């Protein structure tokens, strides 16, 4: 049921030209995936999925869409061959999917009984012992992303602003004198 919901939402995401509709559909995909994670005995991952993806990333995306007041997506004009590329790629991936679907039927088909892997305690334990290095790397990556985002979205650096202001003042002064 959630799988069907996820597929429907993702198709509608790609189909809609309006970015805001796409964003809403994507939120639908995320929430249905979170429900699937709960059925897969991973409540922690499900909660983080809702919190991070639906709660933070997509809110940011919606915020940016509203801030920039984007219009509809234009159809391809000069890159028409991309349609063909997309179709071929889609077909290949789908074929691959079905191949996997049949190949996997031979591997373990019953979930491990009483799996404790999804418990917050176990995730935390292995996160800070066995996988400490990846966690540290991800932390540094996040820090770099924060700094990068701040620098990127700054308008102009201070000296540049002063230059622009000085130029404007000068032009205004000239105008007054011409008058």
């Amino acid at each position, binding site marked *: 049921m959630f*799988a069907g919901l996820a*597929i429907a939402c993702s198709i509608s995401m790609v189909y809609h030209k309006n970015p805001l509709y796409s964003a809403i559909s994507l939120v639908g995909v995320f929430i249905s995936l979170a429900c699937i994670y709960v059925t897969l005995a991973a409540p922690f991952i499900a909660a983080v999925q809702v919190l991070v993806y639906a709660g933070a*990333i997509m809110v940011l995306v919606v915020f940016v869409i509203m801030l920039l007041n984007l219009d509809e997506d234009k159809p391809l004009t000069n890159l028409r061959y991309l349609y063909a590329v*997309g179709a071929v790629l889609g077909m290949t991936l789908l074929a691959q999917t079905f191949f996997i679907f049949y190949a996997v039927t031979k591997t373990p088909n019953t979930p491990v009984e009483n799996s404790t892997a999804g418990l917050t305690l176990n995730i935390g334990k292995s996160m800070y012992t066995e996988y400490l290095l990846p966690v540290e790397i*991800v932390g540094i990556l996040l820090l770099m992303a924060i700094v990068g985002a701040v620098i990127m979205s700054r308008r102009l650096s201070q000296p540049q602003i002063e230059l622009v202001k000085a130029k404007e003042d000068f032009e205004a002064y000239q105008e007054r004198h011409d008058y």
Partner: protein
Amino acid sequence: MEPNLATYLGLSGILFTIGAVGVIYKRNAIGMFMCIELMLNAVNLTFVAFARYYGDVTGQLFVFMVMAVAACEAAIGLGIFISFFRNKISVDVDDASILKN
């Protein structure tokens, strides 16, 4: 039908395909960004499914990593979109083909 590992992998594959095709069809940078997020989620689904069927914590842990990376990507990507929009009044990737302003 009782879902098994193949079901989850199939679902993940379908979602990944939709995301990949979407990246190619969308001309809008934010749309492409969302398709990439969809692909990442499809991969996450395989991680969680394998973690469930092998009773191992590693899969779930790497989902966590993927989410952190996706958050970085969102922050940086949206920063780029905003500064690009300030210069071009559009977020179409076709308009980003010029290297100088």
